[in-house]
């Protein structure tokens, strides 16, 4: 069986790869594409460690076939920082120790970023519901939720300052 040739865009860069028909997007990311920031937790869409965005919508890359990426725009954790400059969410997660073992962290960051792009001023309840598909067995979530809320506030202030 011939492999499938896929042409797609990942973190703004055109990419192509070969995959088997039943490879998941997560298989392709962590395999031929070498983007190992997306983690494999449950492989059944429960834990969110493999979260990416496809055309700006948050998805579990373990629940998507690699072949489906053809013609779409994907974003992974590798695209979150601006070169060496961490994204404000990444910086805040470090400052607030919003992670321990780190397996859930890239999924938490991608999901939080997807939330803040839609809603720059979420309530704590909105943050908690939005992140319900990202499991963390270390932190008890509190530090993560606080880090997202504080990042959102600082990013809003930043936009205000830039406007003034």
């Amino acid at each position: 069986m011939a492999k499938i040739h896929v042409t797609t865009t990942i973190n703004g860069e055109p990419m192509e790869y070969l995959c088997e028909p039943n490879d998941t997007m997560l298989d392709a990311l962590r395999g031929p594409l070498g983007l190992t920031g997306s983690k494999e937790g449950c492989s059944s869409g429960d834990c969110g460690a493999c979260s990416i965005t496809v055309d700006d919508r948050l998805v579990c890359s373990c629940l998507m076939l690699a072949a489906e990426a053809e013609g779409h725009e994907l974003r992974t954790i590798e695209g979150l920082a601006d070169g060496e400059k961490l994204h404000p969410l990444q910086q805040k997660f470090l400052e607030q120790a919003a992670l321990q073992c780190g397996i859930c962290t890239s999924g938490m960051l991608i999901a939080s970023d997807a939330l803040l792009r839609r809603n720059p001023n979420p309530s704590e309840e909105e943050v908690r519901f939005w992140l319900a598909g990202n499991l963390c067995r270390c932190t008890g979530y509190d530090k993560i939720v606080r880090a997202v809320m504080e990042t959102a506030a600082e990013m809003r202030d930043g936009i205000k300052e830039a406007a003034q």
Partner: protein
Amino acid sequence: MADIRYLAPQSLDEAIGAFAAAGSAARILAGGTDLLVQMRSGVVKPGVIVDIKKIAEMTAIKEGADGSFVIGAAASGMALYEHPRFGKVWPGVLEGINLIGSKQVQGRASPGGNLMNGSPAGDSVPAMIAAGAIVTVQGPNGRRELKVEDVPAGPGRTNLKPGEILVSFKLPSRPSGSSDAYLRMIPRTEMDIAVVGIGVSLTIKDGVCTAARVGLGAVAPTALLVEAAGKALVGSKLDDAALEKAAEACRAACRPIDDKRGTIAYRIKTAGVLLKRTTAIAAKRATGK
């Protein structure tokens, strides 16, 4: 690895041809949030996967001039959430759809998949039944329409014929004073499967309920239309007596299982409670009060 083929046809005719030709080895891929889990666990070993998302009709969300909506079978929960009008006209259908899984699952999962997966507890199905949704299916012998409540045949089974594909849902236009709501009972606050789910769609004119439909999920082998519950509400001012009569109709319609999520007695009692609460929300939305 067993031979497996991935196809992403651009047209519905092509998809139906490929799907019918592959027979029972074929699986339709919409959001994949059930299919990929089933493949991973080995429950399903498809020979051909037909991805329907390259077919424009399958992902379209269209509001007609008369206010009706046609939703492609593979339109995702997030696409419906982002639609500027859908949630205003059908808030209950949208809340049922948006209760399916996490935000990640919402990014892919579709009401079409939720219906075709055949789970008695699918959250969008009771709301679609209450809405009076009609589905269009197409197979080698052409198109036909079914009421959404006639699609599920039992857990994991539907009444579609071999080779038929779900194409779209049509939700009717609504008279003024209409709205809907969906509520489910789960043991947790989020990310769980319904113990009972109820969709209520109604129309209220001058304080009197003039039309009502009730869809009930997770308490029988399939989601159900509870006609007697709707009838109990019509003609009333949604007073306690009418609500109790409708609640009794819901309890009477239950044929639930006992499992770790809820006992038979608990599910039956909850069905009545949820009928009242869901009706109250739908009525509030319909009257703007």
